[in-house]
């Protein structure tokens, strides 16, 4: 249904003198499609509200995963307390020399009012992960069910090409594991044990990190991403990895 949009566009421009009811509906669909809101009643793209900032047709794919885990980071709420980092370290045994998630600090001395901003970063669990493409032995892979970029430690040869490939600096070599370590949305320590959220999301006192299923219209992340009132963006979209960590304010 969505793929008919270009035809609809052609039809609209072919018949400018009179717009029928059907054409009007097609037009509405097309507009919603471009802004990424129209879901076709079932499944939809990985990034919808931000589709307008991407080249047309970039994200015209179905949600490939169920659940399609993602995180919305309400960046202006972050106070830089780093409780999320502490929780991540504690739950996932992250060594002192590594990190799975980080709070970046931006200072703007000349800004009016608030002069500091905190930006949480972590693995973006990309839909087209450059790390997965680069790994020679499939030691890192995209989970076919939930889309999390996982590690199979026993296969990792430690070539570190995935570290170089990652546009988000989300990987490090863990001596203790003898493999690359990275955020897995706490799949191993929490989600696979029936828990519903990640350690960082749970620990955040300001509800900055909203974790959930992007393919579920009833989920908070779905509602936050599929709205038009507030802009939603991703980091380093030019890397073309189709990330699943969304940023917004409010």
């Amino acid at each position, binding site marked *: 249904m969505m793929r008919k949009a270009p035809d609809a566009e052609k039809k609209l421009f072919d018949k400018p003198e009179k717009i029928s009811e059907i054409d009007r509906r097609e037009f509405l669909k097309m507009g919603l499609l471009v802004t990424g809101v129209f879901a076709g009643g079932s499944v939809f793209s990985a990034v919808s509200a931000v589709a307008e900032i991407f080249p047309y047709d970039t994200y015209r794919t179905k949600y490939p995963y169920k659940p399609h885990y993602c995180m919305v980071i309400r960046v202006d709420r972050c106070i830089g307390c780093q409780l999320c980092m502490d929780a991540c370290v504690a739950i996932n045994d992250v060594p002192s*020399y*590594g990190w799975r998630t*980080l709070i*970046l*600090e*931006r*200072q703007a001395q000349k800004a009016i009012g608030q002069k500091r901003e905190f*930006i949480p*970063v972590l693995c973006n669990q990309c839909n087209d992960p*450059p790390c997965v*493409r*680069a*790994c*020679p*032995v*499939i*030691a890192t892979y995209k989970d076919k069910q939930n889309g999390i970029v996982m590690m199979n430690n*026993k*296969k*990792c*040869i*430690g*070539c*570190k*090409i995935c*570290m*170089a*490939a*990652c*546009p*988000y*600096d989300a*990987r*490090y*070599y863990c*001596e203790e594991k*003898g*493999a690359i370590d990275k955020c897995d949305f706490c799949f191993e320590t929490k989600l696979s044990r029936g828990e519903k959220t990640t350690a960082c999301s749970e620990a955040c006192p300001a509800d900055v990190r909203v974790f959930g299923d992007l393919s579920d219209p009833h989920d908070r992340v779905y509602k936050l991403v599929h709205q038009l009132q507030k802009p939603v963006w991703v*980091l*380093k979209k030019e*890397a*073309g*990895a189709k990330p699943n960590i969304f940023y917004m304010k409010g």
Partner: protein
Amino acid sequence: MEASENLTLTDHLKDAAGRVFSGGPVYLTFLCLLGILFMVGVFSGIHSVYIEGSRHAYGSTREIPLAMLIATYAFFVIISTGLCLVSSIGHIFGVESFQPIAKRAVLLSVITIVSGFLVIGLELENPFRLAIYLFVSPNFTSNIWWMGVLYSFEVVLLIIEFILLMLHRHKASAVAGFLGIIFGIAAISNLGGVFAMLNGREFWYGAYLPIFFIASAVLMGSAAVVFFTIIAYWIRRERLDAAMRESLAAVSRLACLMLAVVMFLTIWRMVTLTVGGTHESMVFEAFVSGPFAFNFWVYEIALGMIIPFFLLLASRGRSIAVIFVAAALIIFCAFFMRLDMVVAGQIVPMYWELGVKEYSRLNTYAPTWHEIFVVLGGVGLCGAAFLLGEKVFDGFRET
């Protein structure tokens, strides 16, 4: 029958050992020094990866995970492919003036690729897993996977080619050599692809590196032929015969031409960087006036390109001393070219655009002694194997 064959083999080995030990004090001193260097390098690598931990022993970091050892691996395998290509001009494509250098070039191609494997083997955290999962769990979208497989095939083909060449089975050798070229070019372009397909790294990304690597390989191969052949004759304490002089003159002209190509590619690479994105502009500045400026202007441009180019141009292959100096400069400076290329692709912090304080400075890299020793280990293996090869195969004499 078998006993006589064994006896013959033993005799050959005895003869070879005799030639090695009668090589003279200078030869033996260099052989020992290079052998020691090789062992120190291996020890340094094993100590770094399996005892101290590469995080402590090597200078590579989370921000710059690919560093000097990857650059050294690239340095060796690019020379290897170049030697394979240059050797093929004579014994596969029939250009007469390139024929005398063929056997030595093929053996050196094997030696340099093995030296590259040694260095990468001491860089990988778990090389033994690679031996299993390269075959059991292949990722066909990975350039490293293709590079590993193609180089493995290439080294086997090169060994077959060399054995057939030594047995004077030139036609069969040419077939193996031709296949070796195909695998070699595919492998080296995949080495370029390892960097060129990382679209998060603007300096590397694009079709430039695979093409540049092939051009650079022919340059390195011809420089290596000149460099090692002249040393080989020096070891023999013989003057170059007329055929070999003519051959080296032809190879040095090829080196000169390829230097021009590499300079042309480098000029356009730098020019395009000036109008690139933020990352590319920063890398450009790092090369021109930043932390890479000395390496770039002194090693890469002056000593690695301009001076050898004019030396080769002026000598026209006639002065052996001049082309030897030019070849030595090209090889020595190419190491810095590889190092700069590898490290510069990672100096701009990943979150630079955000303007956050954690990613507000260029990433820096300084090699550790452990890494330097591993590099020297590779050089030691390459040099010692070359010296041994010259004596074992008796200078590749046709008699």
